[in-house]
């Protein structure tokens, strides 16, 4: 028995190791693609940084280009970037005048907090709505739940965000504080600032999640084992929560994986409207400013996060459904 468990544990470790090793070719291909595609798109990083260059002669431009290492052949630039990156130096932002890793460390907590709060709201709101809609199919409760889902699916979150700002200011003469307030320093101020954008993001993701929960629950509720559970005389609550919900969660968890990765890597529009300096805004501005070191590295960071969350989701499948073996 113990040997069996040990064997299972080793198999799981091997599975995780294999998955982690698969990061390498993915990251290599993404880094290559990102690096070269950024050089192909029009617009000069140096000119974008300078804002304009009238008065700067060619020699001065070349000198500035040399200072930034932009005058070297592209393969050399790529290898230098990757080589330094593996040693922990991902370069300096042209625009922010600081190391890229510092820029990521400054912005990631903002997006991560927003993403985690929004995700929590999604779970709390979407799962009950989806379950009730499925259990009370075609009742008024179901219609209300579906109306909620359709509404938040159809109205873009940035539009709701702008409306919320406009109406808060118009009716209450108040808007959330701008900039980012560290929750360790001022938890109330931080909550004041984050709760509305998190609600908007959370409700938007709740809409799609609620629909998925409803659909999968409806499918599961028609399965034979549910009928068997009911025939055994189990209470309805037990049938729903212990038997139906757990089995309907696999597609939901898959969707949550994708959503969570998107949420914690930043929501550009919400961050812009609410004046939050998160990863989304960092990336968006960096693309506009041709701040290549930021864009390249942030994309790699996104890839790592997405791969890791997917790995966690794959491991969760085994917990939700013991028939799924990762070995």
């Amino acid at each position: 028995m113990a040997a069996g468990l040990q064997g299972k544990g080793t198999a799981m470790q091997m599975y995780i190791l294999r998955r982690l090793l698969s990061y390498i070719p993915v990251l290599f291909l993404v880094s290559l693609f990102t690096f070269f595609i950024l050089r192909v798109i029009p617009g000069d990083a140096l000119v974008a940084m300078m804002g304009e260059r009238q008065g700067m002669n060619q020699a001065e431009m070349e000198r500035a280009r040399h200072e930034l290492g932009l005058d070297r052949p592209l393969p050399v630039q790529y290898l230098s970037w990757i080589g330094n990156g593996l040693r922990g130096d991902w370069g300096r932002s042209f625009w922010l005048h600081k190391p890229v890793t510092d820029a990521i460390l400054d912005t990631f907590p903002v997006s991560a907090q927003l993403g985690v709060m929004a995700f929590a709201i999604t779970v709390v709101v979407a799962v009950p709505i989806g379950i009730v809609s499925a259990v009370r199919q075609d009742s008024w409760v179901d219609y209300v739940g579906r109306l909620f889902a359709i509404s938040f699916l159809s109205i873009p979150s940035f539009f709701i965000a702008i409306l919320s700002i406009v109406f808060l200011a118009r009716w209450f003469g108040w808007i959330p504080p701008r900039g980012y307030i560290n929750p360790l320093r001022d938890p109330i101020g931080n909550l004041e600032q984050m709760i509305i954008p998190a609600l908007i993001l959370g409700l938007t993701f709740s809409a799609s999640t609620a629909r998925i929960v409803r659909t999968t629950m409806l499918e599961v509720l028609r399965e034979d084992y549910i009928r068997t559970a009911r025939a055994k005389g189990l209470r309805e609550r037990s049938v729903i929560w212990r038997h139906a919900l757990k089995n309907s969660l696999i597609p939901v968890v898959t969707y949550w994986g994708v959503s969570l990765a998107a949420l914690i890597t930043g929501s550009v529009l919400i961050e812009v409207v609410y004046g939050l300096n998160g990863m989304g805004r960092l990336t968006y501005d960096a693309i506009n400013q041709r701040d290549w070191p930021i864009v390249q590295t942030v994309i790699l960071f996104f890839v790592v996060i997405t791969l890791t969350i997917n790995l966690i989701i794959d491991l969760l499948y085994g917990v939700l459904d013991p028939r799924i073996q990762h070995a």
Partner: protein
Amino acid sequence: MRAWTNGGWPRRRLLRVGLPLGAAAFLAACGGGRTARQEAPSGGTPTTGGTVAGQVGAVAKIAPGHYEKQLAASQEELEVAKNVRRGGTLRARYLDPPHFDPARAYSCTIFHTASYVYNRLLKANLGAQADPFKLELVPDLAEKWEMTAPDATEFTFFLRKNVKWQNLPPVNGRPFTAEDVKLVFERYASAGVQKDFFSVVDRFEMPDQYTIKARLKEPYVDFPATMATYSFIVPRELWLNSDKVMTEAVGTGPFIRESWTPKQGSTFVRNPDYWEMGADGKPLPYLDRIEVLVEPNPAAQKAAYRAGRLHLYVPTDNADGDDLLKTSPNTVWLDLPQSRGGNVNGFQFNMNNPKFKDKRVRNAISMAIDRVAYDELLYDGLNKGYSATAMPWTFIYDDFPSLKDQGPTFQYNPAEAKKLLQAAGAENLEFEVVEYYLTAGRDAFSPAQDMLRQVGIKVRNRRVDNPTAITMLAERKFEEAINMVWGPPNHSIDGWIYPWYITGGGLNYNGVSNPELDNLLRAQRRETDNRKRREILRQIDRLLNDQNYEVWWPQGWYREAWIPALKNFRPQGFLGTSVCYSNEQFTRAWLAE
């Protein structure tokens, strides 16, 4: 005298029906308003100077809190010593600065911080008592200046003796001297965006620790005005270190930069050792603190204004401004006709492309645009069709000009346009315009495109983002035409025309080369008589309008709204350009509440 009111928007016209009598009375009370300011030609630059008192002109009040063109100083603002209140925090918006080196970019983004932290030798008179349409140079770090050679080849600046750098590293409160000026000017002359203007300098001399003399290679009457624009005195301790000058800002100015968070904002606190005295006999500035935020979303900006997190707001159009007045009825909102400002819409032709070498083709394109209809469609008819031109109208006209003043090539004449195209063999003309800026978020291109289609000209637009457009301009890599004409504003009229149109000029993006124009451009640099110089400038204006190296169309007016408690502030910067180039006036502004 041309009436100092404007037609256009029907609702405004209705409002104005009840105003003429009141306005006339007010004009009389103000001593004739516009005519009073016309006594001194505005086309020239003072060649010597001290403090020049501003003249206050007419006010056109068109709705509660909503003014047009000029807002006279209130009694409270006229009696500063009696009414000024010290303290308070001003909250404004700014654009995220990419760096802080004034030699590397002459951008509004950098100007914000530079205007608070640094001084220049001279500056323009700004604020409630200043005339927004007339350049008046006033002392900054130079307490006076003289043109010491009658042919405008030598200028001497006498510096203040009691000035110290801010008491922060790396300057640590050391005294400011002429050597600081000489060294930074030599840097500006040898490299950087100011080079076009400093290249006329043969050498800077330092007769003593508080005098700086500029000996020029050729006459340049606008040199003092250029100093008022470009002479931010950055300490050598910063600019000798290329990293420091990009990220730090320590000067002799009224505010100390307390913090800078990229993409978020900056905070400035008053410099306790500032050298300039206020009207109350105590050192300036009156404000304790300025907080500037990066707030790119207009809806969020407006919400922030309503919630008191911003004290200034730029309405996107009249409806937006009216909406603001509904919830913030005490807002002061001023509309200013724009000079040619930073970003102007029009067609800028690549003069090296054979399609545009024939003047008749360029004239035909210009004459195919119905500017009055265009103006009504996009800008409430405020300009009556008058279009942006190469140089700000304030330098060459006494009053906001009319479309008629712009000559025959600006008049809508599709029949003549067709004839010209036929004569030039360009009946089926097609060209591409690279497009970036859309004025005030509107599609400024489509109406012009439709008008050109009426005379058989097909124009395609190719939209690009900001870095792409700037790169294309900088490297002169647009094939046929580009719609955005970026350029640094300037207190000097020469700055608006010389580098743009002189053969091979630093801002001559479209390759203009015209010997007659070159001669006129050089002549205006030499002419020390303001009236004669103004006549040369008018000749240049007529020539440029006739040549249509660019085809301009009407521009939106510049709008700025602010809280009524903010006193001694007017948004005009460089003769009608935006406040982002004029925020040094916050040194003398105060918050009444």
